[in-house]
């Protein structure tokens, strides 16, 4: 059984957990597929509204 805190990725250089800081956290956010799908839906909705209004 492996302790979660021992996950190698958590200790990788520059990760937020290793003290990489706010910049790294934002970089992770901008690469997050969840963000991309959310932004795509929002853009599509705004375009649709523009067409309807």
């Amino acid at each position, binding site marked *: *059984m*492996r*302790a*979660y*805190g*021992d*996950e190698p*990725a*958590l200790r990788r250089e520059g*990760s*937020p*957990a*290793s003290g*990489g800081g*706010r910049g*790294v*956290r*934002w970089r*992770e*956010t901008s690469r*997050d*597929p*969840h*963000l991309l*799908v*959310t*932004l795509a*839906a*929002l853009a*599509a*909705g*705004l375009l*649709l*509204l523009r*067409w*309807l*209004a």
Partner: protein
Amino acid sequence: VSASFGAAGAWTLSRERLRTLQRAGVLSGIAAGAWLGAAEAPTKLVTTGLSPVVVSLAMVLGVFLARWSLPALIQGTAAVGSDVREAPHLVVFAALAGALWAVANTLTIYAIRDVGLAIAFPLWNTNSLLGIVWGVVFFRELRGAGRREWLLVVVGALAMFAGALLLAAASAAEAPPRDALRGVAAALGAGVLWGTMYVPYRKAYLTGMSPLSFVTFFTVGEIVTMGALALALTGGPAPLARELAAARSVLFWLLLGGFVWVVGDLFQQYAAKYVGISRGIPLSNTNQLWGLLWGLLVFGELAGASGVTYGQVVGGSLAMALGAAAIALATAGSAEHALWAEAAAREAERYGVDPAYVRSRMAGEDRAPAAPRRRGLDAAIVAAATLVLAAFATIARRPDLAYDAFSAAALAAALLASLAGVGLALWRATRFR
């Protein structure tokens, strides 16, 4: 680190604890349906000649008041601050989810105008089907679930969709379709946006954020987007101000509707947290059933309608209730929960969130004693929201709408009973985490 994973990444969460959380989540989903349905009552004011954009904006203002005051009242702003320090990236996702909500809500106005509520409602209720897809694709929901659970969720969702179609057909007293293509596109668009809005929800709850903290930032995205849309759609600040001033005597009811909506949404958030979006969202979509009850009993809709219409109402209601029951019975077992934990671990790793925080919050627990409350700030927020509501109440007058006071009181009593009962169950199981 006390949180440890087995071979499949499973957190050691007892079967009994899982069952308690599942029960709290299902009850929250059902209560969400009742409160979200009741919040539709003020939209009847559109029939009194109020602009749909003003109705929507005023409700969002009520939502804003509730979403800052209720969390301050229930858990305190200090707890919100502590959640944000653990996972600050979720503020972005919460605000984006709020923006999605506002755009979707505006799309529904066009959908109702162009094809009527009857066609529009079931179309945008497809959001729960999309919620299932995103739940499976992004958050490993239902993977590792048995065939029985899959069957219950899929058949339940389809039964609810069929029920929604029947109920919508029954409420076809709307204006005839004006522009079918535009209306259908608007309704489907709203469904896609609302369905996708659950991605940030689930993301936040897998990471461990409390729903009370999430909605505090959600509402900022919501009010900014709705304000911008209202300005764009009414033609600028001056026309918008004129419309709001003309509606001032009923603004209180719309604010109150927004408040009621928030209570429903909070329950929906807890459902998404504890049973996942693939189960929580279909459950809260029973709001259509409750909306219909308000329409039938309080506002006398369908009075003198044909036997066919009443057949559709009874059939649709039964299909929805059975669908919700099927989904509620599709308990997430420990194998599925282990995969949720894996998805949570991935989130924690990506953003470097403390695993102990993620684990304890996912289990509905807290690893540390509650943050000391900032009583002064909490009290000031609650007092300000109360003052605003009271100010609008003093200029409010009874809307020019016929309604049945006895039925309204009975439904309101049922709402309060669900608030007390489910609120207590949720408090006992999770302390509102």
